[in-house]
């Protein structure tokens, strides 16, 4: 049945070279899929003209207001007919992947079959948004394709001014640096707030992301409105054998150059074993040659560097938890922002802890919904109203861990000083109790 292929001289040049070629993949599909034949035609036209030829529209599934990205061609001839009619409608279903993006081959094969049946056969694993992107489907097939995916346990993701699909790192599934159950945290927060995903009514998008430690493998600090990043409060754990194994391979020069001198807070020192001052906050690794490596845990900022260099030799502490940062976002409109600390530490182990995280997430969404201007991200809202007002609204206490340094300018009215000092005392007492 396949339509004749269009000439694609520019795309053809993307078939050579060692990296897998999406063009070769599209051509394979085009052998018995007319939609892909015409997609290649339109894509070649975009290459030729340096111009995109899609426009949006409204397409959805029954019961949901988002999750489908509609695409209609704008490439029309003089009489207004699409030049590439079979790809005139080329929508995408954003589908939420299993947390951590784990699959077995049965599931992947089934997804391929479903998409071959209803769509173009082109799937992206995954979009930057974290979704599986089932790309290329006509309007009439959207509902049946969704029904089949949905019956098997897969749900649409977010699009538009809505809660968005989330991402978590591989974490607990295969990483010794993981400080919490990332998949559980993701599913707790997302699956309890699906109404805001499926029926977009927020001022703008809101993203949660979850990384098991400060290496932040899913870039949560920059790519999410609320980042949950694993950390610990007690001492770095030492596996002396593995530290010595590292030391045998690398020697003192590497230990000094790659570990000690790269610690951002100079928390690590190498001392003669006899001079080690064992203290309740010091992690000590015996190097086996009369020297020892000491880590001052009171000054360690859990940056992860030394744990990265000596895998298994240094491990996160036992009193694990998470830091919550808020306000990361892309460049529009005030410039890109990183998330900043709003909760320096909270435990995330018991059912109640997860309940608390869920309440916090709900609280963030509610405050955002009520206070952000249209098309304003959380980071921009905080810029506008100030961090202190934001914390007030969410019901969180201020903490010096939220800033890099105190205010630099005197332009502030401080006639509430005594009351604020009293509050600081209260916080201190509450923390001590």
């Amino acid at each position: 049945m396949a339509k004749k292929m269009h000439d694609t001289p520019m795309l053809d040049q993307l078939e050579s070279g060692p990296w897998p070629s999406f063009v070769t993949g599209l051509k394979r599909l085009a052998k018995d899929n007319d939609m892909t034949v015409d997609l290649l035609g339109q894509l070649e036209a975009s290459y030729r003209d340096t111009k995109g030829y899609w426009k949006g529209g409204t397409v959805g599934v029954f019961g949901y207001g988002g999750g489908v990205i509609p695409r209609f061609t704008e490439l029309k001839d003089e009489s207004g007919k699409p030049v590439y009619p079979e790809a005139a409608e080329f929508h995408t279903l954003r589908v939420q992947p299993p947390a951590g993006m784990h699959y077995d081959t049965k599931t992947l094969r089934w997804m391929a079959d479903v998409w071959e049946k209803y769509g173009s056969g082109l799937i992206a694993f995954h979009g930057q948004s974290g979704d599986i992107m089932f790309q290329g489907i006509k309007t009439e097939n959207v509902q049946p394709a969704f029904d089949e995916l949905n019956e098997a346990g897969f749900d649409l993701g977010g699009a538009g001014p809505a809660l968005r699909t989330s991402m978590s790192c591989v974490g607990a599934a295969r990483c010794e640096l993981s400080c919490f159950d990332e998949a559980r945290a993701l599913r707790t927060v997302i699956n309890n707030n699906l109404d805001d995903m499926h029926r977009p009514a927020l001022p703008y998008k809101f993203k949660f992301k979850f990384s098991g430690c400060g290496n932040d493998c899913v870039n949560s600090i920059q790519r999410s409105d609320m980042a949950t990043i694993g950390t610990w409060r007690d001492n770095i754990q030492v596996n002396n054998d593995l530290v010595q194994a590292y030391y045998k391979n690398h020697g003192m020069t590497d230990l000094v150059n790659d570990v000690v001198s790269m610690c951002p807070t100079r928390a690590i020192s190498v001392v003669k074993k006899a001079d080690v001052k064992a203290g309740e906050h010091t992690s000590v690794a015996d190097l086996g040659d009369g020297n020892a490596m000491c880590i001052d845990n009171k000054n360690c900022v859990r940056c992860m560097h030394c744990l990265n260099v000596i895998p298994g030799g240094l491990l996160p502490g036992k009193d694990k938890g998470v830091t919550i940062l808020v306000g990361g976002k892309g460049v529009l409109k005030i410039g890109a922002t990183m998330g900043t600390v709003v909760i320096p530490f909270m435990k995330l182990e018991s059912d109640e802890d997860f309940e608390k995280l869920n309440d916090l997430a709900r609280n963030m969404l509610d405050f955002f919904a009520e206070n952000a201007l249209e098309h304003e991200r959380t980071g921009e809202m905080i810029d506008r109203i100030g961090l202190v007002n934001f914390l007030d609204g969410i019901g969180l206490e201020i903490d010096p861990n939220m800033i890099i340094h105190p205010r630099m300018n005197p332009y502030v009215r401080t006639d509430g000083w005594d009351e604020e000092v009293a509050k600081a005392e209260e916080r201190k007492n509450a923390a001590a109790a």
Partner: protein
Amino acid sequence: MAGPRHPIESGAPDPMPLMHPVMKKNYGKWVFHSHPKPGVLYHRAESGDEIWTVKAGTQRQMDVYTIRELCDIADKYGEGHVRFTARSNIEYMVADQSKVEPLIKALTDAGYPVGGTANSVSMIAHTQGFLHCDIPGTDASGVVKALMDELYEEFVKCEMPNRVKLSTSCCEINCGGQADIAIIMQHTKPPKINHDLVANVCERPAVVARCPVAAIRPALVNGKPSLEVDEKKCICCGACYPPCPPMQINDPEHSKIAVWVGGKNSNARSRPTFHKLVAAGLPNNAPRWPEAAAVVKKILAVYKADARPWERMADWIDRIGWPRFFEKTGLPFTKYHIDDWRGHRATFNASNHIRF
């Protein structure tokens, strides 16, 4: 008569039933990892259980035949369980070490580069481009294919000072995100307005509100309600284009490519940082963008030769300083490198710290 089917609002699926059984069994109980060779990771759990991961690059935009081929490899040479990384690499997990080499061979023979671990240049985080976005100034998958062809050796060899994460974005919204090196579309001319369409297509107050520098005003043009742009103010960001396609920002000739370096999301050593502009004005030259690729390769070569072990791009530049970066890479320093947006004073050198 059956009514419409109501969706099952099941949200993000539980990964446990799909996860490799050894990962499931040792969930949260891993104690060690190493990097036996490029593309392979070894993890050991408290229980003594071990797992090997073989990582391979994909084209991200996968046709069903590719997916089935990757599954065939997993069933025949792996253990039927895979996962994808945030950069669209595929990971095959096996509990049996003897499967590692045959798996590597099968992937390599089928054309999937094995690598992307540790100190490699990993697959490029990228966007949608001409294939599916409604506002792109350039393509995404094609740029990435062309660049990864050039960077293939760095993906499979893992010889960089530390991880190198790249991204590309086909408009200044930068869906690709912050990266050690980011290649981003940069418009250089204000939007050309199609006044015939504005009134019908655009919600004018919303468009006015979208502009970061308040350069847009409602106006009557040829007797029709439209918009006008103060071209002296306009910073060519393209923000007005998504809500109002008649604000034509894409321009085959004047939309250029810019290169940014030193973005880092990890907290390791220094705090996370944003990438900074180093080159612009590169032609948007499909289908292989050779000029942009040349700049990226040059920066990578200098970084590889000059950075110390464990220094990410940002850490390296922090040590040697920006003047030296421009000197060593030979990239010209221009007035456009000096910031004039919010917070720009914090980017000036308020000291006499100067490296000679």
